[in-house]
């Protein structure tokens, strides 16, 4: 089965529907029309650009270029993690911790999956590596952003409680323990729910795409299971690493709670 080509006028039809929706929200005075149109425009521009980049990348298929692409994706994800936190660590730590955690979790799990499980030849074949990394980063990013956001917010609100525990001579790990566990749990819940609902409530996007592209559903399912597992592992370890590092950063060498290391919300 060949993938049916989509002509530009067919896309324009989809765009017209979005315009119609924007018109309706304008009539209902929902105040989202402008944001929606800008977002739609961004979708078109960003995806077209990435299409061009991927075409070029696939035709070259050289490791340095793929690594550069991966690096750009990582930095963009790091920026997104920072932007999604209400109270962030100061001095670039929010970006640093988010990016480093994604690097160690998403990157290592992607490489492991490529080398040890899927095994394309060569292992960095961009048709496998880039989409896989993209999905890993997208999910890990959400987990880490939620985890860090919950951690700093909880510590900000529970300052008196954490310091009272410090006053009783508790170690910093015990004093922040509850907030830290909550933050880790919140970061992992979306992906756990995603696994639980897969196939019943939602047909995962990648599987749908593969089936549309003509892959037999049983193979698409195998790939989807593998992806769900790797995403869970990447998100889980990424969230653990990020929340652990960030909670350490909230205390100094004398185990004092340092709220001056959290910037006020913008």
């Amino acid at each position, binding site marked *: 089965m060949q993938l049916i080509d989509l002509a530009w006028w067919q896309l324009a039809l989809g765009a017209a529907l979005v315009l119609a929706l924007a018109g309706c929200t304008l009539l209902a005075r929902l105040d989202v029309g402008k944001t929606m149109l800008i977002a739609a425009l961004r979708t078109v521009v960003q995806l077209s650009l990435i299409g061009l980049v991927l075409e070029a990348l696939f035709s070259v298929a050289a490791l340095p270029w793929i690594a550069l692409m991966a690096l750009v994706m990582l930095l963009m994800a790091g920026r997104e993690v920072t932007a999604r936190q209400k109270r962030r660590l100061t001095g670039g730590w929010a970006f640093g911790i988010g990016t480093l955690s994604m690097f160690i979790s998403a990157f290592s799990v992607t490489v492991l999956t490529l080398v040890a499980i899927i095994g394309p030849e060569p292992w960095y074949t961009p048709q496998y590596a880039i989409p896989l990394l993209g999905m890993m980063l997208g999910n890990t990013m959400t987990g880490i952003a939620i985890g860090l956001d919950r951690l700093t917010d909880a510590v900000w609100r529970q300052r008196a409680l954490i310091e009272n525990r410090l*006053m009783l001579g508790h170690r910093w790990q015990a004093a922040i323990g509850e907030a830290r566990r909550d933050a880790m749990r919140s970061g992992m819940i979306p992906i756990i729910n995603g696994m639980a609902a897969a196939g019943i409530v939602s047909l995962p996007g990648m599987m749908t795409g593969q089936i549309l592209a003509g892959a037999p559903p049983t193979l698409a399912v195998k790939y989807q299971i593998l992806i769900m597992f790797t995403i869970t592992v990447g998100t889980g370890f990424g969230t653990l690493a990020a929340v652990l590092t960030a909670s350490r950063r909230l205390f100094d060498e*004398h185990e*004092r709670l340092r709220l001056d290391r959290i910037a006020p919300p913008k």
Partner: protein
Amino acid sequence: MPPPDAAALTARDLCAGALTDVSLDIPPGHILALSGPSGSGKSRLLRALANLDPHAGRVSLGDITQDRVRGHIWRRAVMMVPADSQWWADTVGAHFPDGAADDLAALGFGPETLDWQVGRLSSGEKQRLALLRTIAHRPRALLLDEPTANLDPDTTARVEAWLTERIKHHGWPVIWVAHDPAQIKRVADTHLRIAGHRLETAPCS
């Protein structure tokens, strides 16, 4: 007669909040009352002594020096009791080491108190239980931030009598933040008052 591990709490050239160059020597079993208008930096001084805020100056308890030991080791010895105590677990008992408390009866509680729900404690009960909780952690020095602020006169007298007896018995050096001149007269060995950026000696009566 204080036990052999009783030690003096000393501070040299301490700067905390508005206060500068504070030097203190509190011998074992000695209660230093600290007074001053609100916002004058009493709590900031206690926080610096407990090493909860970054500050300048040297603090030591006997032969341990504040900046040479890990934070929790220091605070396990020099414990601060804040004006409004915080409770993180569901039951009172879960806040005590090994779930056991001494002296419950001395402050008017029965053994069933340890099973009480924290959410139902009154502010006065919280204040008395916070003192018991701190003592149960076996401190070697105490920093008390208005320990009887939420108590009626009868309970205040009871807490004062129990606390001063414990302090003398264990030989703890103590800073006791208080507003009431009568209380200072009853419990304190010395009295310092915050005046601007300095501490000045004030009469106990």
